[in-house]
């Protein structure tokens, strides 16, 4: 059986690697990880020292067809005079699975010297048998087809079910920047001699790709589509979608060299014993796939790092109490899985007075089939130039978690630094030249709502256009009119009185003069002068519209001058008034002719043109 050959090869390889262990006792169990129901396989326990009392575990779910067989091998080597020897004792069972499923074979034990050792346990997956068991007839039919095509060796041999490549994508619905694993897996029922370099891997446009180093190709047995295939991952890469939408991955192409058994037309008796094989090239196509990439949801937090995955943030500070001009280092570690290469370096807002240097970034990323994991550590170095207590604000860092479909925020704690004055060196003044500028308009938005108190309406308020409103004009107008009428009447009455007095002034003066004349005849000096004075003053009072009591020489002069009375007449009036005054208060000395005074008064009163 072809399978068995393969298995034996694997077994041998495992045994050899087990033998490479040093003198310590190793007790190792080995069996293929996948077996098929009804197909015998070998379970072997290997110990590298001479042991006894081997106790096999209870093997459930498998029929023990044969065993245990023991086999020993020992070898001694001299390399450059150094002797190395190895010993191997193997217990082998031949088992056959009864039913499909997953089975565990518990550890076996063995005693070496006086100590008991346990082997490792094994996990064996039992696959269902092929749906169409390869009966002899079937095989010969396929072989016949193969031989029929022999004339054209470039023609692929066997059907597409024998050997093909599948495209496996870990997810087909992802967010932008979320990692997916794409693998090309070879499924084969035939022997593959090698895969040539003649492969065509698509360009993966729309993705950032990171190829995974597969190392030694691991083969497995896998039940697929009713058949048990030998499988191997032949190409694996991590893909990070760079934009949203449906991104198509083009089909890939591989070339495999397949060993095909020859059947010569002429049958010889050796044919059944010595098959000959020829290598045939097979073109294998892997189908393309479409990945649905959805954009990251809206509402990105302010400090969004561009990270998609699961991240953790750690920070530490070298010291919190230091002196001026002494360096302080803040270290931020971002670790986790996701598109770590795309992560932005967080910004640390150093307080004023700190001289900050460019951060030192160290990436330690590992890529595996699980995605990219690792850490990014950033060291921020700053030197305080001024003493005091300062706070380094918390650094906000957020990423998108595709598992929960939300943005998550991380933050470092705040650090408070106490800076003492450094010895010796004078405190350097850190000068900060700030360019003056107007208030920068960052964005426009509506003004915020009004949050004050509301007040109730005053019910009796005068409203525009109402009667009350017009009354506000009408009432003052009426008041003003009334005032106008009253005032006018008052002023008019006043004016009438003074006018009548003005008109009668001459007559009144003449009357007084008549009385004076009578006094003159009686030669009553005192009475005469009094009458004369009163005649003049009453006349002036009536004509100038001011009360007699308020008359004196000064205001008489002023008023007369303002009425453009001749200066000579004013002087005359003055003389007359002072003479009568003098005569009244010093009657004895007055020798003036009363007749002259009388004539003069009459003259003045007629000449005074007011």
């Amino acid at each position, binding site marked *: 059986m072809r399978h068995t050959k393969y298995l034996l090869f694997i077994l041998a390889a495992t045994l050899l690697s087990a033998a490479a262990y040093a003198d310590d006792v190793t007790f190792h169990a080995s069996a293929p990880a996948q077996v098929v129901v009804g197909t015998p396989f070998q379970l072997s326990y290997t110990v590298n020292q001479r042991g006894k009392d081997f106790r096999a575990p209870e093997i459930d779910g498998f029929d023990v067809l044969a065993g245990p067989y023991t086999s020993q091998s020992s070898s001694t080597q001299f390399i450059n005079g150094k002797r190395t020897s190895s010993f191997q004792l193997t217990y082998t069972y031949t088992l056959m699975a009864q039913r499909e499923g997953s089975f565990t074979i518990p550890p076996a034990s063995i005693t070496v010297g006086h100590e008991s050792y346990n082997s490792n346990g094994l996990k064996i997956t039992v696959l269902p048998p092929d749906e169409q068991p390869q009966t002899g007839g079937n095989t010969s039919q396929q072989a016949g087809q193969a031989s029929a095509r022999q004339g054209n060796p470039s023609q692929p041999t066997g059907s597409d079910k024998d050997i093909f490549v599948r495209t496996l994508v870990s997810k087909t619905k992802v967010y932008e920047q979320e990692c997916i694993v794409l693998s090309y897996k070879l499924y084969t029922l035939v022997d593959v001699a090698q895969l040539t370099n003649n492969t065509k891997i698509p360009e993966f446009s729309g993705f950032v790709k990171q190829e995974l180093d597969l190392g030694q190709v691991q083969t497995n047995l896998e039940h697929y589509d009713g058949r048990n295939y030998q499988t191997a991952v032949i190409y694996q890469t991590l893909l990070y979608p760079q934009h949203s939408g449906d991104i198509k991955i083009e089909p890939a192409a591989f070339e495999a060299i397949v060993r095909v058994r020859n059947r010569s037309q002429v049958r010889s008796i050796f044919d059944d014993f010595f098959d000959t094989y020829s290598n045939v090239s097979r073109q294998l196509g892997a189908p393309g796939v479409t990945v649905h990439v959805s954009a990251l949801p809206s509402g990105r937090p302010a400090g969004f790092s561009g990270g998609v995955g699961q991240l953790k943030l750690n920070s530490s500070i070298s010291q919190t109490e230091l002196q001026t001009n002494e360096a302080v280092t803040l270290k931020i570690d971002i670790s986790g899985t996701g598109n770590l290469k795309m992560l932005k370096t967080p910004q640390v807002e150093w307080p004023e007075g700190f001289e900050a240097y460019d951060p030192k970034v160290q990436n330690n990323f590992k890529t595996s089939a699980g995605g990219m994991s690792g850490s990014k550590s950033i060291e921020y170095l700053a030197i305080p130039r001024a003493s005091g207590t300062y706070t380094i604000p918390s650094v906000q860092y957020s990423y998108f978690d595709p598992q929960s479909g939300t943005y998550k925020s991380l933050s470092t704690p705040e650090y408070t630094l106490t800076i003492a004055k450094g010895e010796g060196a004078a405190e350097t003044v850190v000068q900060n030249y700030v360019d003056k500028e107007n208030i920068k308009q960052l964005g426009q938005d*509506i*003004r915020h709502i009004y949050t004050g108190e509301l007040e109730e*309406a*005053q*019910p009796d308020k005068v409203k525009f*256009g109402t009667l009350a409103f017009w009354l506000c*004009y009408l009432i*003052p107008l009426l008041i003003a009119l009334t005032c106008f009428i009253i005032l006018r009447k008052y002023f008019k009455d006043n004016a009438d009185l003074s006018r009548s007095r003005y008109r009668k002034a001459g007559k009144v003066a003449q009357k007084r003069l008549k009385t004076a004349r009578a006094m003159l005849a009686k030669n009553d000096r005192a009475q005469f002068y009094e009458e004369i004075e009163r005649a003049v003053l009453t006349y002036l009072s009536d004509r100038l519209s001011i009360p007699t009591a308020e008359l004196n020489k000064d205001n008489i002069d002023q008023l007369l001058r303002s009425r453009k009375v001749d200066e000579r007449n004013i002087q005359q009036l003055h003389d007359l008034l002072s003479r009568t005054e003098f005569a009244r208060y010093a009657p004895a000395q007055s020798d003036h002719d009363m007749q002259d005074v009388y004539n003069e008064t009459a003259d003045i009163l007629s000449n005074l043109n007011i």
Partner: protein
Amino acid sequence: MKRLITNILTLVLCLTAFAQTPFERANEQYTQGNYDEAVELYIAQLSDTTVTLSDRSKAYVLYNLGDAYFRQNELAKSILSYERALRLAPDFDLARQNLEFAQSRIVDNIEDKSNFFLRQWINNFRHLLTTGTWMWLSIALFVLALTTLLVFFFAPSDIARKLGFHTAWVALLLSVVTLAFAARSHSEQTDRSQAIVTQGIVNVKSSPDRSGTDLFVIHEGTKVQITDRVGEWLEIHVGDNIGWLRADYVEVI
């Protein structure tokens, strides 16, 4: 017993309602970003018949309502609220600013024909004070004019008479101007001829008829002047364009 409990519950509810007016609760919701609730509460405050708010307070509520609508991206409703707030308080600067900001977001760019700078200045000046203030100012100036007129008539000295005369005519003139301002503001407030388009896109027809020719298209938030009404249809002026549209596509300010 049941009734008693219900009564107590109602009382408690009333008390809590008194403790915080719908307006205050709305402001709280707004600050927390719950704009739907805020809008509902502002509307509840406006339609609350138990409290008669002063015009200015109503303008405040409308202004906040406009803000909440704006946050909900209801541009037309927000413009409508700001316009209504300005109707009640023409000197409400914040509402005017927000209105202008909201108007900058609408699609239609209508050339305002009244954009002559002098007119603009006068309007801006008029909007510095409310109708009531202009009204009282006019009355005060009228009284001043009357008083100084009396001084002019009856003052004994020439200077007082001259001063009285000039003050009187200046005051009378200003009184008339302020009265005109008050009248203009008042008519603006009671004007029902302007409306805001609430529909996203409206085809304006040539006649008040569904089958009329489409003349032009206006968008949400545009202010139109209503000039005529035929049944369900309104004749509107937008800039230089005249046409008919259905009344339920617009809301009168």
